[in-house]
Structures are given as C-alpha cells and as structure tokens.
C-alpha cells in the first residue's frame, strides 16, 4: 500500500495510511452496528454511497494536488456550478453533440483552474485570495445573463447524454454507477500523476519547501499552474457529474462543496501546509466522510445533528493521529 507519496518499501504502510484506514474502518464498524435492520449490508446501499461520494471525491482529488503543492482552491464549488450550467446549456438548450457539451464544460473548469494557477504563480497572489476571487467570478459567470440568467437549466425528460451519466454498469452482479467509475478513474489518474510523474514529485517538493525546490531546478511556477489547472479540470468533470445526477444545471449548485472536499482531504491525513499526504489518503478520507453521511441518513439522524457530528469527526480524525504519532513515532523531534 502506498499513499501516493514516496516509495515505502520496508515494513508497514506509513502511519498516515494506517490512521486513515482505521478511521474508515471505525466508521464502517459503526455502520455495521447501527445497520438500520440490516439495510447497511445491502450491496445497493454501498453502490449508492459510492455514487454520492463520487462527485465530492473527484473534487477532493484535485484539491489534494493543490494542497500538496502548498496551496488551496476555494473556487471548486463555484466551478462545479459553472461547468454544470455550461454542460446543460450546451446539451439542453443548444442541443449540441454530447462530446461538445462535455468538452465545453470541462474546458470551462480547466480554464478557471488555469487562471487560478496564473494568479498564484505569476501574479503572486495568495492562493486563498486568488481562488476566493475565482469563487465569486465563476459563480457570477454561471448566474450571469451570458449563461443561465440565474435560472435552473433543465428539461423533462432530460436528454440522453444526461441520463447516460446515471447509467449503472453491471460489474459481477454489482450495479456500479458510471459516476463511481469516473471517480475511480480520476483517482487513479491523480495517483499516477503524483507518483509516477516528475510533476508529482515537483508538487511534493514545492509544498515542502518551494525555495529549496526552486534552487534544485524544480520549475516552480509551471508546476503550480499545472496543479491548479488539474484541480480545475477535475472540478469541471465533477460539475458534469453533478449536473447529470440532478438532471439540471443549477447556477446556485455546488455551494459549499469546496468545504466538503477539503474536509475529505484533511480527514484523510494530508497536511494543509503542503508536502505531506497523498491521494490514497484522500480516497480513504472521502469514503470516511461519505459513509458517515450515509450511515446517519440511514439511521434517520436529523440534518443539524449530522452537521455537528461531521464537524466532530473532522477534529477527531486530525487530532488523534497527531497525538498518537507524537507519543509513538517521534518522527519530527525538532518540530513543535
């Protein structure tokens, strides 16, 4: 097992991965205990859960890249709305061929990410500020009269390319939704990019110490632009997926999704200060958060209580590994 970061060839998987697994295991254990009269053991429930996680998980993959490089992207929620609106305008209103609709939506997301990267790398804006600006801009663009005019874009019944997104693939008797498969594909792509490409190593190096990385010949600016662009691309894909799921382009959609996705990254164990963590951790974090929601829904826990429980889980998931590794592992004796 690996966390997408450096090779680890000796002994156990690194402690972060163990902790992330432990958190997920604990959540699943709770699910088995409070199984809502056995409903939790139905395969269909898990297919649903994965499907629900898919969109957020894709966002979290993109955010993992940016966060590992020492940045943050607050704009992904708005980009989801923008990409979804563009996709539905193209497919529902303009009735363009599906390939063009997908392409336009994903290109819009990629473009937003690229601009984020340019603002951070070349204009030296703080990532928080640059992507906050993009968050407002993309939302405004999605709602502007150029695109949706603030109205949901939908048609009943929806066109076939939107229904296709909700297709289920029969994998050995298990009906896995296409969204889940796209999520896994995005995860694998991110994993390979981070682990098997020079790009990934550069991302880790910049997140750990951009100055030293630069003095070692790492193309810092180019890598940062690529990182945000990749994040935007993935947000664009997620936007299409969400639009398919809701059968509409909602200019008000995606609000707050960036926070859910960041929570998934953090609960997985990737450090917000950059350089430490990996996308495998994010996969585990996404499953953890997603399953918490599913289990609470199945047990009929009221939504306000769900929010409070999720908040608590974020704190515990980040705090416990920290406390344990301080006592057990002595990894960074020099650091506070």
């Amino acid at each position, binding site marked *: 097992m690996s966390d997408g970061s450096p090779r680890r060839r000796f002994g156990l998987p690194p402690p972060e991965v163990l902790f992330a697994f432990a958190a997920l295991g604990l959540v699943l254990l709770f699910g088995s205990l409070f199984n809502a009269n056995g*409903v939790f053991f139905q395969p269909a*429930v898990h297919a649903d859960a994965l499907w629900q996680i898919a969109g957020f998980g894709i966002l979290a993959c993109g955010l993992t890249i940016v966060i590992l490089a020492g940045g943050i992207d607050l704009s992904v929620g708005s980009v989801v709305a923008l990409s979804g609106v563009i996709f539905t305008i193209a497919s529902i209103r303009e009735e363009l061929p599906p390939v063009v609709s997908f392409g336009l939506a994903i290109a819009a997301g990629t473009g937003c990410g690229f601009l984020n990267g340019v603002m951070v790398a070349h*204009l030296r804006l703080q990532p928080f500020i640059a992507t906050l600006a993009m968050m407002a801009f993309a939302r405004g663009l999605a709602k502007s009269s150029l695109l949706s005019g603030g109205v949901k874009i*939908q048609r*009943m019944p929806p066109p076939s390319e939107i229904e296709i997104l909700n297709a289920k693939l029969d994998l050995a008797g298990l009906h896995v939704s296409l969204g889940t498969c796209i999520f896994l594909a995005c995860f694998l792509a991110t994993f390979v990019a981070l682990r098997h490409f020079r790009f990934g190593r550069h991302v880790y190096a910049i997140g750990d110490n951009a100055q030293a990385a630069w003095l070692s010949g790492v193309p810092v600016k180019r890598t940062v632009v690529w990182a945000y662009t990749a994040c935007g691309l993935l947000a664009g894909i997620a936007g299409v997926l969400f639009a398919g799921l809701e059968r*509409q382009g909602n200019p008000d959609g995606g609000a707050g999704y960036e926070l859910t996705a960041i929570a998934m990254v953090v609960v997985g164990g990737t450090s917000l200060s950059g350089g430490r963590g990996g996308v495998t951790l994010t996969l585990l974090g996404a499953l953890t958060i997603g399953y918490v*929601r599913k289990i609470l*829904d199945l047990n009929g826990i009221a*939504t306000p209580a769900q929010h409070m429980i999720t908040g608590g889980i974020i704190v515990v998931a980040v705090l416990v590994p920290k406390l344990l590794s301080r006592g057990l592992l002595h990894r960074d004796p020099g650091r506070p």
Partner: protein
Amino acid sequence: MAIRIPSLLVLATLAFACMPGCEKAAPPTSGTPAPVTPTPATTTFTIGYSQCNRGEPWREQMDKDIERNAAKEPSIKLLMKDAQNDALAQQGHVKEYISQKIDLLIISPKDSSLTQTVAEAYDAGIPVIVLDRAVEGDKYTCFIGADNRVIGKAVGEWVVQRLAGKGAIVELKGLGSSIPAADRSEPFREVVLKAGHAIVYEADMEWLGDKAREKMQAALALHREKNSIQLVYGANDPAAIAAYYAAKDAGREGEILFVGVDALPHEGIEAVKNGLLAATFEYPNGTDVAIATAMRILKGETVEKKIVLGTRLFTKDNLPSGGEAVK
C-alpha cells in the same frame, strides 16, 4: 505579454467579486424607476412597487406576474424597484416613492425593519398594500399573503383523498429552523396521520435538491420492498423532483407518487406536465389579487385589512384548465 492577459482577467475577477450582489444577476431595474407599461393617454394612477430581492426564482416570477397583471389595467402606471436583499436600500426606495407622490404603494418588504418606512408612506396619505411578508402594527392599508399552513393542509387532504387504504409516506422537509418548513409540514402530518397513513421516513433536505436526493436514496434503501413507499411529499418542487430521479435511478419511480409545493412554471408545472410529479401546490405570490385590490382602493372602496391567499392544485388532468383553486 504572458502576464498582461491574465492580469486583465484578474482585474475583471476582482471587479466582479466587489460588485454587490453580482451573483444575484442584478436586474437593470435597480436604481432609477423604469416605467413598465407604455404610458397611455388615459393614465390616472401611478403605483410604486418595491421588491425586496429579485434574485430568487419565485420572486422573479412574482415580478413577471405583477407586470403582466398591471398591464391588464390601462389606467395603471407601474414603477418597479429591486432592493437586492438590502433593507436600507428598500427604505430608500419607499422614500423616493413618497417624494414622487405616487398614488399607491405595493411593497414586498425584506423584513419587519420596513415597518417605520411603510408607516411613513401610509401617514403621507399613500395607500399601502403589503405583499407576502408582513410588517408590524397597523399602519398599512392591506396585507396580502399566502399561508403555508393552508398549503400544508391542502396537500394533506389531497393525499388522503388520493391514496387508497393505508399509505406509506416519505416526507422531505425544508430547512429545519425555518417557519415555512414547519408550516408546510405540521398541518400535512396532522391530516395524513389522522387518516391512518404512516410517515415511514422523514428528513431535512434544507430546501436543496441535491440533499433531497441523498435523503430519498436512504429512504429507498430502508424501504426496499416493492410498493413499500406510496408517496413522497417534498416541501418544495426541487426536492420532489430530485426524489423522483432518485427513485428512477433505483427503478422504482412507477410505484410512487411525488407531490411538491410552489408550482413555478418552469419547474413544478413542467414536472407535472411530464409526469414526474403527481401534483404540485401553488405558493401564490398574490400579484393578481394585489392589482385587483389596488384598483378597488384607488376607486375609493374599502378593503379588508388582511387577505389570505388560497392555493391552487395542479395535476396532469387540470393543467390545461390552469389548475384548480383549493378552498
């Protein structure tokens, strides 16, 4: 060169971010009042209309409706202002109307902080129709508003009449802390529970379609036997529609009835037309009643202090005839 172009975009980005309410797709009606109806020679009455926030679909529809209804009366000249969810701006708009000496004010106030300003207009001798949201005291001519409790009860009664035998119902409620959510839920539950139906799953979908879909998926998982759910009541149409799609993805849309509230033309009505929803109940904006009442006031008649609007039921059968009023 490589820097030049992105920097322009950044400036544009920031400009957008700084524009207040840009994400509300600001309508051009803010600022100066725009005459909406062409001024015929017979114009005798100027009505000032103050909208608190056009940036939501229901209110956007409300503005369209009041324009349409006012256009039917040739003697009315309608002025429109949108306060973009800003109480202070709305106060300013009303004061402008007062100094313009309009003949009648129709206001949908942002909140009760408009009480004082409305009273000023009323004291200045301008008749005031307060629409949808109330102000305090009695310094206005007439309040016209819908009542969510009436709607909740109407939905309940329709469900009781529609479901034969004992039904299993899923209720997707609005944001837990909001009064409309409780008002649409409590009378409904009272009626259906009394008739012996069971609410087998209920959840707070926070008025959001995507949340409603998740909750509906949980409901379907918990009640996975065929026909173990007969009906889903969504406290707004997006929730009911999202629940329909969740059922469709589970292959169970055929066995369940979906009922929503709001009946906006491009959402609930469209969904009823296409057979997604069995019914939707209108949450009326009261613009037709408001214009009619305004005419009565302007002709010197006395009107009721409070007019509670009924709701309209839309089903596939009564759609062509424009729905059916519920008493």
